[in-house]
């Protein structure tokens, strides 16, 4: 009996016990969808505890330690508290849209998990256009912010939402452009193909600049610090979800945590080899693929937690400047440079031939060339930025030196 597809496994059992043929297929697909959708929700429960402990230890305090050993049952205490709150709908709010907005936010994250390859034989759906699907689904989260702010019938929510939507839409551009690099290197948009193309060399060594750009853009897409104007707990009276309380607020909250972990998973799949471990182990024990994937995702998740707890918030105009004047030009030049270098490598003949594509040693020359190209571009960018900043600083001190001479008499 085959085990890699839930239709092959469950449907024959149902048919044997008397179900109709395609009703059994439909029921087994439905069950598979439910299992795959519950997976990230269960992970979120652990994430709530982990994030609070991590943030607390960085800030030199203990974190949750009362509920259960080491505070491990804290998420359950949170859920019970939030479930017990009164379910308020503000007066004049558009009830249907008000209730749909948090659901759409969680939906936009869960839909990403449908294309992530969890192991060599387990994947929700091997879409031909997996990478493009991820970006399309991320736009649902932007929609949910608009729905939430408009239906709250609150001026401040609306104002907060304008800035948030501007941030979310702007950072989709470098996200999509840096997503192009793994697609180019693997020759296909399907996430399964991208993962299998990294059997020779992980893409984070081949294209480190793209990995950094993707990481920064995905942090801005979720609204994580330093781009967390979305929540800004200490500023604009909590932003677009000001009128949400109780379980609906919990949905927004949990959706954001899930989104950060999903970004870690995407970084692992696109740049760090996904389910590929060492020595081809995941081909003989496919469940180890899931373990490897989650280990790599946790590394990126912890990196984002570190950045969140250590760096202050940026202003909205600094955010927009950073995106349109720095990230977008760098990602465009990066795409052009990588395409050019790939062709150069093929012309020079040092690209690995198709039958040697999975060999580590055969990939090294190509990796060295592309890595060198990335490093050169990174140094160029840093030089440009630092020289411009130096010019501004010199100009500012020159201006300050002139003024006292003319003032006062």
């Amino acid at each position, binding site marked *: 009996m085959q085990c890699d597809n839930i239709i092959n496994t469950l449907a024959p059992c149902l048919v044997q016990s008397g179900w109709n*043929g*395609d*009703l059994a*297929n439909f029921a087994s697909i439905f069950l598979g969808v439910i299992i795959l959708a519950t997976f990230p929700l269960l992970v979120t429960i652990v994430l709530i505890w982990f994030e609070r402990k991590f943030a607390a230890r960085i800030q030199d305090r203990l974190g949750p330690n009362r509920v259960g050993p080491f505070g491990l049952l804290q998420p359950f205490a949170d859920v019970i508290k939030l479930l017990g709150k009164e379910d308020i709908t503000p007066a004049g709010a*558009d009830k249907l*849209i008000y209730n749909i907005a948090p659901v759409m936010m969680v939906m936009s994250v869960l839909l990403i998990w449908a294309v992530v390859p969890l192991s060599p034989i387990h994947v929700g759906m091997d*879409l*031909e*256009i997996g990478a*493009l*699907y991820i*970006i*399309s*689904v*991320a*736009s*649902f989260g*932007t*929609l949910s912010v*608009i*729905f939430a702010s*408009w239906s709250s*019938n609150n*001026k401040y929510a*609306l104002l907060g939402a*304008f800035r948030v*939507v501007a941030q979310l*839409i702007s950072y*989709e551009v470098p996200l999509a452009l840096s997503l192009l690099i793994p697609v180019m290197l693997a020759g296909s*948009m399907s996430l399964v193909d991208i993962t299998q193309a990294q059997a020779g060399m992980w893409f984070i060594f081949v294209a480190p600049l793209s990995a950094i750009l993707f990481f920064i853009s995905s942090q801005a897409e979720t609204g994580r610090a330093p781009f967390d104007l979305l929540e800004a707990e200490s500023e604009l009276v909590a932003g677009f979800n000001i009128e949400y309380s109780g379980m609906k607020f919990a949905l927004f909250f949990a959706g954001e945590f899930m989104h950060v972990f999903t970004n870690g998973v995407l970084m692992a799949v696109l740049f760090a080899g996904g389910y590929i471990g060492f020595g081809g182990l995941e081909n003989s024990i496919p469940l180890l693929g899931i373990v490897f994937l989650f280990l790599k995702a946790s590394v990126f998740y912890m990196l984002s937690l570190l950045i969140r707890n250590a760096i202050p918030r940026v202003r909205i105009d600094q955010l927009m400047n950073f995106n349109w004047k720095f990230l977008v030009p760098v990602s465009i030049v990066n795409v052009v440079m990588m395409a050019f270098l790939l062709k150069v490598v093929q012309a020079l003949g040092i690209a690995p031939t198709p039958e040697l594509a999975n060999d580590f040693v055969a990939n090294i020359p190509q990796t060295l060339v592309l890595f060198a190209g990335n490093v050169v571009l990174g140094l160029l960018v840093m030089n440009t930025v630092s020289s411009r900043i130096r010019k501004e600083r010199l100009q500012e001190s020159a201006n300050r030196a002139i003024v006292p001479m003319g003032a006062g008499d």
Partner: protein
Amino acid sequence: MNFGEGLTPEAFAFGLFTILTLGGALGVVTSLNLVRAAIWLMLTLFGIAGYFVLLSAPFLASVQVLVYIGAIGILFSFAVMLTRGMTNLKERFNDQWWLAGLAALTAFVLLMVGVIVPAFGNSGAPVSDQVTTTVDLGVALVSGNQYVLPFEVASLLLTAAMIGAIVIAREDD
């Protein structure tokens, strides 16, 4: 797979997307509250994306969701919010709405009777079950003897539209 006489899953999906699309379109043109109309529009566009998936064009379906729902839908919501203020005025129709309805109905009947039924009334299954893939679409868009020139012109058009929209909507300082 057959659920009954001829109700294949594909027919079921077609019916579902038809309800989404036509129901959403009716909601767009009859809704008095403009924000609701924008939401019906997004539902309609989602139905069209579903049709594209049924018709073996997954790339266009994804681009439809990304561009129409993720960008144009948000543009419409912003435009509705920025040109109304926070008052919930109910929009009204023209005085000649019945004439417009008559014109639309005439157009539909003319299209059906004049074009669709004579020319394609007895068309059935598609010509072939295999289709080209997304790779072929990519090749077609950049290959020298196919569509590279319209592709470049389209990118120029988008740049011009972007700059023009910013210039028009900017406040005069």
